[in-house]
């Protein structure tokens, strides 16, 4: 099995090598700018030929005609009011003139320009990157440095509740596509300098900004180092969504289980940060990644912590049972139906036999058909415009459910089995992807070997899970003894006043120093 995968991996590696070197290393962009304004303007014209979005504006001081400036900005990504009022007006009407031996750029930044963020730059590449990101560039005649001014103003979505992760209780904010906006949502939740935000630029062509956030005193430095190394080794032309990074830094890339978490909710990210985890923000996507991601996090929901622990413990157990059911139920049914009929209670046995007697297909084939049909319905539902939803559910329920049974294409018990499989699968949406594959695999094994196959398959799955790591942390975290202390947030959700410790991988494991807030 592994040999097979290695072989496939080898194929990919070879083809990747051929593409190497195709990435342009911009020779011209490494250059420094000139002190002549005209030269710089020609250079910009050359660089941005056919980029008609770039705007150029020459400005002269009203008091001193020799003071020439030229500003560049991209239309649509800047705040033009700020440019008018605080830049052009200020430059025009300034009464300051350059004195001998004085750093005129510094004078401009400190005494003329009325824009909060101003930076000096002399590299062409730096300037190009800044202007396309919404900054305004100010060239000054006779100076070898330009000034980068922050005038960014993007069109962004407003902060809304994410559709994928709705909650009944708790914060309803969700991330948007704006990186800085997303960071601000986190920043606001932790008013401490301990929350670190490190910037990286990934993607050789898209130059996407990526932020790595963590609580400095909580994060496990080894995990952080591990992650940074992996992030820095990414060599891809573009990153359009956080999932690109997920697949590129995944330690077990062939596993159907994801070892990197994702969320669209700032409160979830903050919770993870407080557990000593690391969040990865990517520009242009509302999805934020969190590592290390453990298996049990698939079953946790932010709501678990906002509602009564009695209730959420129950729903967490339901989710775990749901996952077990959704992968095993078809296999279990086929095993019992075709191999171990003794397992049925007699009355049930007879009524299932009655249903089966008039159906021509073997139950295993029936199961495959129904599972595929269910997935077709699910897939259609996920992508289709909302207005057609009614039609789909009617067609789905009638055709797949009733008509198939009445036409004796499938037996009624199989409809129940596939419905149970589908619905329990939706209990744990984060595990939907692996569940689809494992379910089919277990079904195949059950069809050939009955319970024996089912057990072998389930055992293989558990062995596989035990072999998974997320940023060096065991996916199942089974290195701990099974004690109440260690399962407080696993199968149950203990009350907050009992959860006095963080997960074991965090650097500082004490969450509450007082013994159970005086309740102990």
């Amino acid at each position, binding site marked *: 099995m592994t*040999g097979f995968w290695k072989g496939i991996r080898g194929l990919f590696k070879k083809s990747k090598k051929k593409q190497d070197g195709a990435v342009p290393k911009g020779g011209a962009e490494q250059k420094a700018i000139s002190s002549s304004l005209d030269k710089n303007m020609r250079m910009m014209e050359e660089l941005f030929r056919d980029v008609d979005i770039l705007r150029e504006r020459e400005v002269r001081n009203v008091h001193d005609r020799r003071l020439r400036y030229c500003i560049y900005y991209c239309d649509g990504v800047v705040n033009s009011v700020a440019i008018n009022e605080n830049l052009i007006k200020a430059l025009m009407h300034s009464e300051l003139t350059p004195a001998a031996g004085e750093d005129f750029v510094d004078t401009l930044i400190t005494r003329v320009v009325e824009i909060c963020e101003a930076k000096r730059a002399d590299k062409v590449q730096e300037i190009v990157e800044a202007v396309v990101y919404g900054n305004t560039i100010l060239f000054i005649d006779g100076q070898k440095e330009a000034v980068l001014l922050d005038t960014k103003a993007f069109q962004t979505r407003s902060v809304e509740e994410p559709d994928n992760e709705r909650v009944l209780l708790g914060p309803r904010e969700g991330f948007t596509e704006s990186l800085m906006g997303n960071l601000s949502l986190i920043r606001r939740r932790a008013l401490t300098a301990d929350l670190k935000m490190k910037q990286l630029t990934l993607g050789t062509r898209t130059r996407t900004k990526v932020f790595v956030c963590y609580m400095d005193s909580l994060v496990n430095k080894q995990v952080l180092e591990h992650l940074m190394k992996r992030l820095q080794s990414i060599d891809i032309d573009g990153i359009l969504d956080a999932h690109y990074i997920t697949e590129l830094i995944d330690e077990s890339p062939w596993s159907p289980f994801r070892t990197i978490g994702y969320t669209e909710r700032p409160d979830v990210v903050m919770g993870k940060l407080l557990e000593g985890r690391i969040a990865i923000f990517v520009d242009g996507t509302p999805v934020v990644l969190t590592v290390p991601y453990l298996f049990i996090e698939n079953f946790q929901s932010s709501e678990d912590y906002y509602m009564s622990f009695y209730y959420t413990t129950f729903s967490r157990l339901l989710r775990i049972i749901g996952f077990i059911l959704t992968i095993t139920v078809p296999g279990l049914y086929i095993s019992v139906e075709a191999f171990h009929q003794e397992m049925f209670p007699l009355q049930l*046995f*007879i*009524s299932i*036999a*009655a249903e*089966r007697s*008039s159906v021509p297909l073997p139950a295993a084939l029936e199961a495959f058909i129904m599972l595929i049909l269910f997935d077709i319905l699910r897939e259609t539902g996920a992508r289709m415009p909302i207005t057609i939803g009614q039609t789909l559910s009617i067609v789905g329920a009638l055709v797949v459910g009733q008509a198939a049974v009445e036409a004796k294409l499938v037996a009624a018990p199989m409809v129940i089995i596939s419905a149970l499989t589908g619905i329990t699968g939706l209990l744990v949406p984060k595990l939907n992807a692996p569940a689809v594959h494992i379910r089919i695999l277990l079904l195949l094994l059950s069809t050939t070997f009955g319970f024996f196959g089912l057990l072998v398959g389930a055992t293989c799955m558990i062995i596989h899970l035990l072999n998974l790591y997320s940023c060096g942390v065991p996916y199942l975290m089974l290195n701990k003894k099974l004690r109440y202390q260690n399962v407080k947030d696993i199968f149950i959700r203990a009350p907050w006043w009992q959860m006095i410790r963080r997960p074991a991988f965090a650097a500082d494991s004490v969450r509450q120093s007082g013994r159970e807030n005086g309740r102990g």
Partner: protein
Amino acid sequence: MAKRRLCLLLGFLLLLSLSGCWSYRGLNEIVIVAGMALDKNGENGRYKLSFEFVTTSTSSSDNGGASSEILESEGDTLFEAVRMAKRKVKNRLYFGHTQLFILSQELARTEDIGPFLDFVMRDNEVRETMLLCVSQDDTAQDILKASGIDEKILSIKLQKILENDSKLTASTVDVAVYNAFDIINTPGRDLALAAVRTVKNGEESIPVANGIAVFKDRKLVGFLPPDEARMFLFCVGKVEGGICTFPSTDGGENDCSLEIAESQTKRSVEERNGEPVIKLEVNIIGFLGEIMHPGVVLDLDKVKELQRRAADELEREIGKLVKKVQTLYKADIFGFGSLVNQKSKRLWKTIQNRWDSMFESVQVDVKVDVTIANTAALGKS
């Protein structure tokens, strides 16, 4: 590395052979056998097996859609008859859910029951928990041919009857094949199976359980009616419910009913002059269910008197039954012999060989203690 992987793969393939000799066999490819009846064909001396198999239809008007048909087959051995039955139906017979095995009275009287159980105990599919009973009708097949009024599949109906009657009314026994196998291989114990027969219910004949079939040396010797079956169950401590009637006055008719809530039997052996004496102590806790005698005032003394009368009546009845079995059938269905064996190995060794002849004269002391826990009397308002 490649070698290691090959070894792993081979090991995995070997694992698959552990799954044994089963194969995919869907529910629509089997004939479900609910019960079997064993007779002997008088003409050619071959065994005649009748299978009751479940026929199903999905039409909802048929109320569940399950009914049954009878399939006959003959063979020199049971197994041959089972295999030959396949020739008459399209799918193979499936015995995993077989509930009942009925022996004909005639066969049970003339032949050793052991060989009939052999097939069941050996076969991998047949359940050893299947109940065993003896037909009091002419043939065992007659029982399967009767009509079930509340359950169309006779075998399931009878299995439920035996199971429930032995608990609720204490009028029969539910002996599974593996129990029977155990009993016939226990020294100092004879087999008692459930007896079934058909009775008229309006036009139709329906099957009922009718007491106990008594075996001696693995052969049927006679039957005990349901009320005596209860006394038998008291002797072996298997009573879990049911009604006992007893007289409320000296020499009167049985006009009171005692509903048994709990019954325990302590069986012990005493040695007297080198002979065993069996002691049965029956403790009954019950409710007074009914007094059909007018004007009985239930005060504490009266309740005590009723307790004593019930105990006396039961003592008498149990004693009568033990005597009957001892003298009439001479079959140790109570397992007194094995009881002696359990309690005193030494004593058993000395009497082991004489036990058969000794059983009919062995002394059995019965002591019954009845506690009426609840008189269910309504207070005056």
